[in-house]
């Protein structure tokens, strides 16, 4: 196949996505605002001024997961409405480039969201803050979980964008698929947020997250072409 290579094409699409979001911030702003509102809701719903341990871990991951759904829901919408998908399909490039680009877009969005949402969580709700070193462990879990959310989110977004009830399909498909990520991530960060001082990072949950990322990355790679065939 002539034309630019897969990675060059993926880079171009990724650059386009980030440029769009920078010129007219839409998705990221919504995700960040959502996370702030979610913390306020958790404060009143749980009737707690601060949370720690399992509860803190759960609050953080429910917030990240639901905020991520906002990003997943928007991922392909502009391309479908403005003809970006057709343009991409006409270009002499590998379809996988679109998967790479969209996954990286979602991954970048999630990291950007967490740059705002995690410190906000620390200020608003988290009981005793863990030390600087322990945040490194949280970062590792965030990266592993974000990868899984990005891969599965891209797959679900590519399916849902072609359906009639896009919002419904996105939520009902993505949530059950992401339950293992929630199990792994919330178990992994719970000891770090413990009230009695940060415990060590449980390695087996990192392994579960990494396994999840690997399997769904391979699946997405194998199946994505079928979702953009026309």
């Amino acid at each position, binding site marked *: 196949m002539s034309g630019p290579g897969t990675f060059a094409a993926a880079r171009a699409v990724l650059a386009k996505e980030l440029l769009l979001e920078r010129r007219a911030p839409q998705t990221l702003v919504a995700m960040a605002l959502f996370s702030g509102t979610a913390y306020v809701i958790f404060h009143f719903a749980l009737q707690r001024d601060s949370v720690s341990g399992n509860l803190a871990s759960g609050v953080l991951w429910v917030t990240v997961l639901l905020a991520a759904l906002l990003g997943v829901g928007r991922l392909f919408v502009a391309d479908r409405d403005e003809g970006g998908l057709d343009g991409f399909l006409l270009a002499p490039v590998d379809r996988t480039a679109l998967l790479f680009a969209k996954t990286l877009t979602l991954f970048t969005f999630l990291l950007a969201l967490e740059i705002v949402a995690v410190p906000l969580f620390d200020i608003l709700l988290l009981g005793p803050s863990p030390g600087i070193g322990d945040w490194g462990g949280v970062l590792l879990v965030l990266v592993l979980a974000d990868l899984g959310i990005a891969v599965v989110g891209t*797959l679900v977004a590519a*399916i849902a964008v*072609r*359906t*009639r*009830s896009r919002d*419904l*399909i996105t939520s*009902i*498909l993505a*949530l*059950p*698929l992401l*339950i*293992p990520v929630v*199990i*792994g991530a919330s*178990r992994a960060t719970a000891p770090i947020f413990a009230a009695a001082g940060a415990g060590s990072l449980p390695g*087996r*949950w990192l392994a*579960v997250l990494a*396994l*999840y990322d690997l*399997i*769904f990355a391979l*699946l997405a790679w194998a*199946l994505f072409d*079928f*979702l953009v*065939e*026309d």
Partner: protein
Amino acid sequence: MPTSTKLYGTRLSAWAIAAAIVLTAAFVLAAFYAPIEADQGFSQKIFYVHVPLAIVTLIGFVFGGVSAVQYLRSGDTRHDLRSYTAIHQSLIFCLGALITGSIWAKAAWGQWWVWDEPTLVSFLIVFLLYATYQPLRFSIEDPERQARYAAVFAVVAGAFIPLNFIAVRLADPLIHPRVLSKSGGNLPGDMKLTFYVAIIGMLLLFITLYKYEMTAKHSRAQVRALKRRLGALDQDAPRGRSAAPSVTAS
């Protein structure tokens, strides 16, 4: 030329009779032959319904995933129909497994739902995922795309099942003593025999219901094709979208 030379459902009654006989035998064995389990007493007998239901559910989902792969490779819509029917039936069996599991939990532990029974929790998650299969199909109008996207879903969900089981099982602190290993590995001999007969019976029931649904779909398509040849108005044609794959009489 006749509309179709292939007859569907010719051996359906044989399958149905076999399923009825083997299942009845399994229940008779469960009631009179298998010993009363020392710890849980009579309520443990639901084991011979619950576990076969769960195992056949998984077999059906795997078959649905394999058929989906075959559809994606070949584009042959018969594989799509197999995948759809297998997942449809498995979903019903999955609901059965959840309900019987819940009844068992109530009898054994006094609660309708226990979160530290990882297999049951995994089944709930798997059920919630596969329950989106029909809404997904229903929301895609173009039949070819509907089949393709549904196949992608069936493959992803099939791969999700073992991952989900690993994650849920690791999360389980195993508080309750496990009287029986669910694989049947450490069952005494008379329980094992009953258990295997029950699995075979449940599998036969699944195959019967699967073939019944396939037969119904094909015969409806054949009737429609015959009506069209007679010039009648096609009143039975599905209006608008449908979650089921469209069958054309061959």
